[in-house]
């Protein structure tokens, strides 16, 4: 993975982590048994997967993503991934893109409103 792709994926990690954080807050507000925990867990797992695509040498720290709408953050993550998930890109990136695209759909359905 080249440096530019790595930086992009690091940005995706930050976006996903921020989106997960927001959905967990909403889930906590709902109280016990909130269905939003499914989406929140899904975003967490996507962030984990993105993190594991990066070598240790790549710093994950960076500017905190702006925005407070999980669906928008997920959409941004999807767009970034579309830029780097070229035909020659590793399978992991394509798998991650598919996962994030599904999450965008879930976030735009009623569960995360």
């Amino acid at each position, binding site marked *: 993975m080249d440096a530019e792709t790595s930086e992009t994926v690091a940005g995706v990690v930050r976006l996903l982590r921020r989106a997960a954080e927001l959905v967990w807050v909403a889930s906590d507000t709902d109280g*016990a*048994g909130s269905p939003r925990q499914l989406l929140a867990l899904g975003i967490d797992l996507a962030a*984990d997967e993105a993190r594991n695509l990066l070598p240790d040498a790549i710093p994950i720290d960076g500017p905190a993503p702006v925005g407070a709408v999980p669906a928008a953050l997920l959409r941004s993550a999807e767009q970034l991934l579309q830029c780097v998930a070229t035909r020659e890109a590793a399978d992991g990136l394509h798998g991650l893109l598919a996962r994030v695209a599904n999450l965008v759909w879930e976030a735009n359905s009623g569960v995360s409103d």
Partner: protein
Amino acid sequence: MSPTDRRTVGELLADCDALARETLLDATFDRAPAMVRSWNQLVGSAAELWATLPSVPGSRSGSDPMDRLRVVGEAIGRSARAGHWPGWGPTDEHLTQIGDNLSRARHLVERQGRPSQPKTPEAQAQLEEFQSQLMHTLYVAAHGTAVALGAYVTDLQDRLQIGTRRRLPLVERPTALEVILARGMIARFDGFEQLAAAYLFGMRPTSGNPDWTSVAAPFIRLETALAVWEVQAYRTLANGPDPADLVRVARVQALIASTTSILTEAAATKGHIDGEVIRRLAPALDASQAAWNRTAKRWAELTNPASRTDPSLISAASEVRAAIAAIATNQTGWATHDQLAARVDLPKTVKCLHLSMIASVDLAYVVRDTAVDHPGLIAPARIIGMRAQGEAELAIEQGETRYEGVTWTTPHQTAANQLIPLPEPARRGLINLADSVIASTNRAVAAAAQLDTSKPTRSMRSDHAPHRGRSYESREMTRPQSQAPKGPSR
């Protein structure tokens, strides 16, 4: 292994079963610690023998009941080796003998060449017989150990009372902590026993249980995903986990608790479960879910941007999430009770989820052990300094004097937000949260106790007649037919 030992595999297994029964008869308090220490070796030998036997045709891949039992046995073994109760000491002769017999049986099977799938009904019946006998041995031995532990706790309480009354020196009295730890071990053996019972009493697919082969795919997916998840969670936690792993474990367990609640309510609505049971169970499941979520949040404080989650754990968690989403959600949230009833066999799915809940008690103990033992726990100074101070103030209010006037981070550490070793009060906070998960999940298990995992009872009504393996019938220990498979009479 004696060179003159000419017993066959069947004879060795029969001897194991007999020894397990003797264990139950001799389950005295003084044997309990040794039995706990021997447990992992016994389960390991059983798992190795099980692995040499071919699977019964029609069984579902990825849902091997022995996998669950093996990881629980390993967790108990690791806990004892790490110095937790009962710590180091002698092992139990009976259980060791059973383990040796099982190893001998495995050698015999291996020497004859790994057997292929049974091709005749007789060969299949014998295979089922071996598997049932092996599982029954574990079931009875686990029950015997739980009985011995119960006697041990009673003895400790008696001595504690007498010591207090006679004002004996503290060193001559057992401690209340030992009572708590031994009780915790009883809960773990109860869980093990129930997992083995679920296999023995009708949750396995066999040729004599064709109903299982036509169970809807979503249920099989969920059952397999839960079994794989439990095994993977144990494996990840056993290998120097990152705090991020603990966060995922807790979040997935919380989701499973929520799903259990949703499906159980649907089963009650559809008349499969008594309303009284659900009234007791629902709050306990909510409390368990909340406790797992609190645990997740606290462990999340120990993560940092570079934290990584075990890829195998991510994969197992993803499958649990997907299986739950397929069964229990629609586009607006949780599926309606009608939708749930149309998608899965509610009684069977509820039994499967409750079995997972039983297993989660032991997983919570492993999380607790991790909080106690993990040598590499570090955390950002700012958040963990505040957390340690908060926990210390709580402890001081309860009479702890060691924390008075202590500061947990240096100004430099705080300014730079350095990663620092976890201060003791913060670690104590993690342990307390694990205790809270254990307590709430145990309450849920107790509330669900009437939801028999084997057959219809007054609390769980199923349209499907439960299967009891033919081979098991011949060895069933005396027990009233109406009782849940909690174990032979104590």
